[in-house]
């Protein structure tokens, strides 16, 4: 937290006259964690400055749920770069209302890094905050889309889809759906050529297996459910967007390079 007025920080972003100054100003604005910063952070996503965009995504993820609605509005029809960064922010926040955007992005985006982020976002959705009546259909849609993405041409998208299915499976309560995911993994192991993706499937299988009740008694189910909850909790990291802050210096030096050329 900082005492600096948001208006002053916003003005600094608007007045920045070099890529480096812009990144610094966006960093400062993002770190202020102020709701008034949201429109400016959204605008920065479209500036075509990767360093600034990373900082803005980070700021939006930190602001969390209150950034979701403005993000969804902003994503509507905007330029591609801004959309791609917006998807990353939605993926990091994990609010259920980002679901449709993440599903569409995973199915249709041409950039593998964006599909990767969308898959990760589907694994990161806080299902418990969705009305119980909507949950089964929404989870089924995520599951089907992720199973399709497990056959993406790019290994990293397949890897991200498996990781997301793993997270989804730990959140599911319907044993049939879990079995469906497990059957998908088993099938994929027959054809998967990338060793790293094979390994991720096996990790998911192993960890899910160790959380599945073996005796089927109500006590066993209760215990398994609790285990799954703990497991899921341990996987939720507050800074999960690949710690975008670690990008900043790199992005700054990148921008400086582009600027010099």
């Amino acid at each position, binding site marked *: 937290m900082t005492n600096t007025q948001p208006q002053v920080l916003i003005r600094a972003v608007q007045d920045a006259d070099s890529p480096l100054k812009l990144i610094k100003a966006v960093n400062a604005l993002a770190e202020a964690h102020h709701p008034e910063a949201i429109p400016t952070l959204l605008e920065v996503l479209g500036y075509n400055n990767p360093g600034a965009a990373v900082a803005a995504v980070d700021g939006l993820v930190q602001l969390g749920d209150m950034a979701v609605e403005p993000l969804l509005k902003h994503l509507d029809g905007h330029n591609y770069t801004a959309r791609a960064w917006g998807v990353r922010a939605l993926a990091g926040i994990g609010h259920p209302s980002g679901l449709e955007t993440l599903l569409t992005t995973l199915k249709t985006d041409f950039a593998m*890094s964006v599909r*990767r*982020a969308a*898959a*990760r976002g589907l694994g990161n959705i806080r299902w418990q905050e969705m009305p119980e009546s909507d949950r089964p259909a929404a989870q089924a849609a995520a599951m089907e889309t992720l199973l399709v993405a497990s056959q993406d*041409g790019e*290994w*990293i998208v397949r*890897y*991200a889809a498996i*990781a997301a299915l793993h997270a989804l499976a730990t959140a599911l309560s319907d044993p049939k759906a879990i079995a469906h995911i497990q059957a998908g993994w088993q099938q994929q192991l027959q054809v998967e050529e990338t*060793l*790293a993706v*094979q*390994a*991720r499937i*096996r*990790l998911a299988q*192993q960890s899910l297996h160790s959380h599945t009740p073996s005796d089927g008694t109500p006590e066993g189910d209760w215990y398994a459910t609790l285990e799954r909850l703990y497991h899921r909790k341990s*996987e939720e*990291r507050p800074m*999960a967007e*690949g*710690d975008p802050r*670690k*990008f*900043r*210096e*790199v992005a700054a*030096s*990148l921008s400086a*390079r582009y600027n010099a050329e």
Partner: protein
Amino acid sequence: MAQGESQTDGTLTVERAIANLRGDDLGLRVYAAWWLGRFRVNEPEAVTVLIEALSDEADRTEAGGYPLRRNAARALGKLGDRRAVSPLTESLKCTDFYVREAAAQSLEMLGDPVCVPALVALLQDEVPGTLPSPEQPDFIQPYDSLLEALGTLQAADAIPLIKSFLEHPIERVRYAAARALYQLTPDPNEASQYGDVLVQALSGRDLQLRRAALADLGAIGYLGAADAIAETLAENSLKLIALKGLLEHAMQQSEGDTLPPEAVRVMQLMDALL
């Protein structure tokens, strides 16, 4: 997948590319050479025309370079046909720096150690008539590519020579030497000291060098670098590729169906970078 892609690329067919490479249009020839490598057209006829292109004299740059030879040399590394080993070894004597660089890289990919003496001779700058890099005149030979090839080809006899490059003034060359020595040193404790040279590079100030170190660590699969890779300042995409190299290395070392704990650790780091 390679074949499928070549069918769907509307601009060329295998037959057309081979015909273009034999034709007179220099632009089409250079493009065809690249295309055959890009789509990994591993057909005997394609390999034959590419080998012929290694001695092309028609396509020259103002500085005396051989663009077609460069593309042909690069393509041959991707096609995996051992017939190319001897002509590529011959290309290590080319006046054009970039032809020699491409030849060294492709010889590394083809994996036949018969070229090792020629790589060593070039590394010692003992091949007359070879010109330095036009951009960096003090870069006389493609040292980094030569060192990497010697590491991959398990040229243990070259260890003392490679060690002398650990002190080279150019960082990229020092990293290549460390990478090769890591691959050539059987004792894991001793090898890790070379791996750590690359880990150190991850905290350097130059982004390009950090990227180069990431690629090297992924290529050698040095598990001791996992956390440093996850934390270095570079794009997540590149970190993920490097960690993939570590993960696959760990999986190849393991027996049967068990996931080694190092592999699980690497996957946790990868998950956080998605």
